[in-house]
């Protein structure tokens, strides 16, 4: 007698079928979820990378949201300062006009009134707010920073603070979010309100008008130089946004590399698995239909 062949073919066939079905399931799962890693054991290293990657992606989104919030307040602050500069240059013209010897007292009084109006206008800009937060109050953003104060020589007191906040715009990258109002408008030697108050007084009394004009000019130059902070920061924010958007794209590509399914491969795997399964089933259908007993009569 020759070698005995395993007479229990169905068991063998079932093991084969189970394997084919498993491959089919895997391919279908990849196609339906779009992921080749559907549980940590599918590829533990890829899942670890995915977790770190998604933490980074989430941080990038937060940085972008920080930047977008900050851009709004920075643009608002910059435009307020622009108005302040315009108003100050107007005050300088008034001073030049007032220094002209052809002006009489009532003309100068009218000019002084105009200068007072400009001071009020600038007070309004200095108290500008963005989304409910005062822009020039230091970090005390809920307090109106500049108040009319008759006891102060300029008629205005700063009641904000000198704090500066920073926010993160990238890993380890921070930018300051504000300049305190005291640094901008009431800096020693370049106090905007004092300069305008002095100009108004000078025009009214017709004394030291050129000196007062000089004072306003100094304040104008000072504000202009401080304003560059906002311009520079805004341009830094733009650069950071471009960088973060690129990083965001890279991170999502990386995520796809780590856990995303290659649809073409998954689809061809599905076809392959189905073909195998069909073949196994067809073969299985042929097994055990006949034995010698069928031919004994």
């Amino acid at each position, binding site marked *: 007698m020759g*070698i*005995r*062949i*395993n*007479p*229990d073919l169905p*068991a*063998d066939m079932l093991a084969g079928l189970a394997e084919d079905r498993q491959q089919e399931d895997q391919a279908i799962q990849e196609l339906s*979820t779009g992921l080749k890693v*559907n*549980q*940590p*054991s*599918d*590829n*533990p290293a890829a*899942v*670890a*990378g*995915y*977790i*770190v990657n*998604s*933490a980074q992606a*989430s*941080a990038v*989104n*937060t*940085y972008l*949201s*920080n930047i977008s*919030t*900050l851009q709004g307040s920075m643009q608002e602050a910059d435009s307020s300062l622009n108005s302040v500069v315009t108003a100050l240059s107007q005050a300088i013209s008034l001073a030049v006009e007032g220094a002209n010897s052809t002006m009489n007292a009532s003309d100068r009084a009218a000019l002084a009134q105009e200068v007072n109006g400009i001071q009020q206008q600038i007070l309004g800009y200095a108290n500008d707010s963005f989304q409910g*937060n005062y822009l020039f109050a*230091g*970090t*005390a*953003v*809920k*307090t109106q920073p500049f108040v009319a*104060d008759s*006891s102060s020589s300029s008629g205005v*007191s*700063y*009641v*904000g*603070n*000198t*704090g500066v*906040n*920073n*926010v*993160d715009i990238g*890993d380890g990258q*921070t930018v300051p979010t504000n300049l305190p109002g*005291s640094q901008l408008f009431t800096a020693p030697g370049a106090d905007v309100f004092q300069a305008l108050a002095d100009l108004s007084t000078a025009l009214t009394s017709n004394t030291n008008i050129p000196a007062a004009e000089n004072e306003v000019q100094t304040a104008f130059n000072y504000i202009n130089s401080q304003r560059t902070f906002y311009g520079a920061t805004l341009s830094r924010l733009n650069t950071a946004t471009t960088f973060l958007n690129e990083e965001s794209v890279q991170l999502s590509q990386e995520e796809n590399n780590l856990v995303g399914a290659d649809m073409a491969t998954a689809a061809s795997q599905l076809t392959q698995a189905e073909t195998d399964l069909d073949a196994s089933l067809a073969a299985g259908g042929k097994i055990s239909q006949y*034995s*010698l*007993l069928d031919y*004994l009569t």
Partner: protein
Amino acid sequence: MASLFGALSIAVRSLYAQEGALDTTANNISNANTPGYSRELPILTEAPPLDTGQISIGNGVEFDGVQSVRDNILELRIDQETQQQNQLQSYVNSMNQVQSLFNETQSAGLSDALNNFFNSFQQLADNPTDIPTRQGVISAGQDLAAVFQQTGQQLSNIQQGIDQQVGQTVNEINSDTTQLATLNEQISCLQDSSEQAGMLQDQQYTLLNNLSQLVDVAVTQTNNGGLTVTTSNGVPLVAGGQGFALSTETNPSTGFQDIFSQGSDVTSSFTGGQLAGLLQARDQSIPSVLSNLDNLAAGIINAVNAQSQQGYDLNGAQGVDFFQPVVQPTPGSNAGAASHMAVAITDPSLIAASSSLIGYGTTGLSLTAGTTITAGDTLTISQNGNTHTTANTLTTVGALMSDINTWGQQYGISAYLVGGNLQIQGSAAGGTMTVTPGGNFTTDVGALTPGTQGDNGNALALANLQNQAVVNGETPTDFYSGLVSTVGNDVETATDEQESVGLVLTQLKNQRSDTSGVSLDEEAANLIQYQRAYEAAAEVVAAINELTNDVLQEV
């Protein structure tokens, strides 16, 4: 001397023998699909010849019973692979439940809550005095705590489920060993080649294979056909007619069932079968995941609390714990940190968003720069080792402020008014500042309170904890990704092993089928063979009948 009747008895014996062989074939065909059945062969032997003087005449065939065709070594190999297969299978099943808790690519797990929590501090830094934003931080903290709690709880639930399976498995083992002991006793009373002995042995090997699915076994065969069964580490299970039952007892410290044999704890001695897989998951893998989860929770809780205490809340008070502090059951153990994680504060203003930049303010006074104060009223300001007491001759708040500012400018310390309150702002880098009133100020400015004025330094520091090595020398994200990949690796390795063991097992089972399986073709051929032999023997009887008839008619 030969005789007709001698021939008749040979023919009849042959009829009996062929009947026995036909019975055996019939039994094989009937049991073609019976699990654990080994095909049987009839034992036909030549009957001892009849010696009459110098002539020796054959005396026909004898049916000496049946023999099961079984390769005992192969059976044991199958049992060994079965033990390994089932150990891996039950381990993978248990750990699959565990890995589903950390299925990050399907949005399960801690990642989202972890990222949201630290991002909420970034949002707080954008708007540190905003109450809804502060509320958002508390919500994110509560979400994180809830995810830790749930994950910890679910791990415990999985462990408890496994523990119940351990109890059931022990019961099944005991049932199998009792039956094996009974079979041992029955077999020892029987002849080896009887049909019944073959059946009992089939049952014996079927039970042994069942037992191998449950636990690792080492088998020795005794002379009388009995089996002595122990685990591979020598825990007795069956000896002769005696079964040694395993018992379980709840361990008060773990709350899980320990396994005892003959009074001694054998829980850690199992190396195969479903039981070993369950115990490995229950006692090693899940506790390790749980302990890592606890360490992660404790690392985050401790770091966030420590950083909070370094900051100041919206009211200017020293920061308090954000999370309930970790209570270590024993020194060095963070057990329970995840399942007890909770946010300690409910008042959003208590979040310590501000760093040591700290201003002091009066409250309850209505001051302007011109408000008169009494000569002799002083404030002593101290920060970073620099101390200044205001002149005791000042009579207006404006003069007081300018006194402070003149001195403070070089150290970044300044004084100003906010809504009728005097504020003194310290240097951002200068650490905690103190302001001590003197003169009438001790009563007038009794309510001298620190204020933070919207500084966000500590919120940034809290957000940056995500990138700090606060959990066993790793960042929370790195530590967590390590935890998840360890779980994934455990399952992957066990699944791969299971597949390769499965292949070996399939081959071995095929091999067993080759040897012991019933082939209907073969049985059909045997049937013809025995049938023909029976018919031939019957012909012999008929021939002898005719011959005796002839003889009788002659008479």
